[in-house]
């Protein structure tokens, strides 16, 4: 009966939400294929207490492997997972998305000569096998991935799996002494989790006006600020403009940023790449303004405006103000 090993990312004493979703999903799938769901954590043991690790039992993990190792880097986790899988014979490795999940899953596929699929949005059990579903071609079709061999690696899309508390008791915690590969220790963290730009809270806002590269320059964000002010909302941004230094990292939506679901998400000059979509597609109403009629964002927006945001946003701000005042 194949068991499932789930990688769980932690930072600052808390587990990553996508990892908890993956444990929940792993527990459900493991019971469907007649195996167990195990979790693995890698890091400084001082930050991984017995109690914290055992708490993964509440999401359905029966055992948690704990390895002392560097944090925030993929290759040491590949070593740890390969060692645990070789010893334990797990049939599947599961990741809750995110940058590290992609890197670890891919490295593990190379190490153990396994099949790997990423951006998975659903997994189902058939007998003792798991089959993964992956949207492709801008989510216009879904492919199925079957695995052959001893191990299948499943890397989910961000927010694909719901967090479910199973009411299970404490998981058993087992320490693993990992022998790290020489190449895995040649990358070292100099600084982790640097916050660039001011801290803003976008997760509690009912209305978000998000800006992307289409704003043209950092100053273009003023148009978003003005509209957000009129609507009583906050401003969000894409990774491209955050990396370019136009806006604060804490306002970033998507793969390596925040996931939000406001009542209104107004996207200005955002093309709608998958990495952005995963962070905002659960918004109740999506309005997009983009000059490119072929931008992918129009495929998942409720109202799309093909036009120049420099012309539309200022007038929209005035009209919203007039409406509110009237």
């Amino acid at each position: 009966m194949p068991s499932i090993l789930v990688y769980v990312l932690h930072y600052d004493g808390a587990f990553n939400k996508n990892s908890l979703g993956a444990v929940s999903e792993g527990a459900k799938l493991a019971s469907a294929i007649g195996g167990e769901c195990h979790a693995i954590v890698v890091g400084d043991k001082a930050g991984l207490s017995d109690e914290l690790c055992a708490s993964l039992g509440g999401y359905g993990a029966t055992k948690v492997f704990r390895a002392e190792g560097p944090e925030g880097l993929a290759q040491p986790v590949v070593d740890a997972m390969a060692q645990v899988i070789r010893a334990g014979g797990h049939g599947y490795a599961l990741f809750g998305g995110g940058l590290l999940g992609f890197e670890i899953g891919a490295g593990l596929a190379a190490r153990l000569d396994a099949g790997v699929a990423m951006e998975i949005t659903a997994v189902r059990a058939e007998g003792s096998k798991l089959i993964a579903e992956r949207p492709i071609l801008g989510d216009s079709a879904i492919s199925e991935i079957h695995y052959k061999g001893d191990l299948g690696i499943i890397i989910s899309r961000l927010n694909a799996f719901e967090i479910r508390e199973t009411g299970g008791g404490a998981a058993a915690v087992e320490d693993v002494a990992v022998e790290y590969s020489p190449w895995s220790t040649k990358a070292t963290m100099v600084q982790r989790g640097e916050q660039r730009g001011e801290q803003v809270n976008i997760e509690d806002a009912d209305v978000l006006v998000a800006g992307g590269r289409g704003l043209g320059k950092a100053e273009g964000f003023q148009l978003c600020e003005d509209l957000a002010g009129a609507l009583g909302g906050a401003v969000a941004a894409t990774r491209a403009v955050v990396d370019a230094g136009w806006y604060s990292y804490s306002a970033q939506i998507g793969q390596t940023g925040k996931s939000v679901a406001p009542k209104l998400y107004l996207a200005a000059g955002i093309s709608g790449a998958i990495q952005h979509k995963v962070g905002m597609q659960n918004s109740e109403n999506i309005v997009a303004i983009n000059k490119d009629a072929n931008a992918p964002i129009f495929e998942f927006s409720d109202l799309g405006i093909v036009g120049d945001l420099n012309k539309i946003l200022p007038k929209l701000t005035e009209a919203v103000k007039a409406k509110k005042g009237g």
Partner: protein
Amino acid sequence: MKICVLVKEVPDAAVQKRLDPATGRMDRGGEKNLNPYDTHAIEAAMQIKEGGVVPVEEVVAVTMGPDSAVRALHKAVSLGADRSVHLTDAALSGSDVNATGYALAKVLEREQPDLVLLGQQSDDGECYTIGAVVADHLHMPSLTQVVKLDVEDGKLRCERQAEYGYDTVAVELPAVISVGDAINEPRYPSLKAIMGAKKKPLDTLSTSDAGIESARVGVEGSKAQWTAAKAPPAKQAGQIIEDEDTNETVEKIVAWLDERKLI
């Protein structure tokens, strides 16, 4: 320092992508171009070469793909690579991520680069993982989605955005680094470079030339098997307004928002 840049030919972004209904895999016919993300990797290589911190003897573009992939190599050379290597063999067709990474690693073993650069993802498959696969096969350290890359004291200093903010990571060479599109603005090739690209050395390798075990590549050698695609659950298409008269457009937006009590 010797830099190898992994590049890929992808369907042109302007061309409607489609699946082969028989195999469930991407139909890779039609107009092709160099993966736009790879141009950032070539530019990163050129900036290291021109930066003068370390002498760069050679920048080599490497690809795996059918005959037509030569055009992606010509483009890479026109952007500054000194020569290129083309791994092409019918046996490679249908290789999954791990099989592709293994095959590319075998080519790179012959080249013995100090640094392997690649783009953060391919424009067609939306897969950001090949760098990590190649690195493990080569036993090299690796980092993906790097947006700032500097050579310092014989090591790389890399910055990237990860789950909890920006990370700075020191990486010893040789290494495999995939770069994000925010790292630079790729240059346009000069007409002279475009004309001269076909004259630069190009090695064409088969799987046996590269020492690739044929049982580990192609459809048979791939452990992830993609099956026929199905349609996603139908989603009601949104309303689209073409902005002709902006006052009118804005009126329509406000009415739409008002109807949903969003103002």
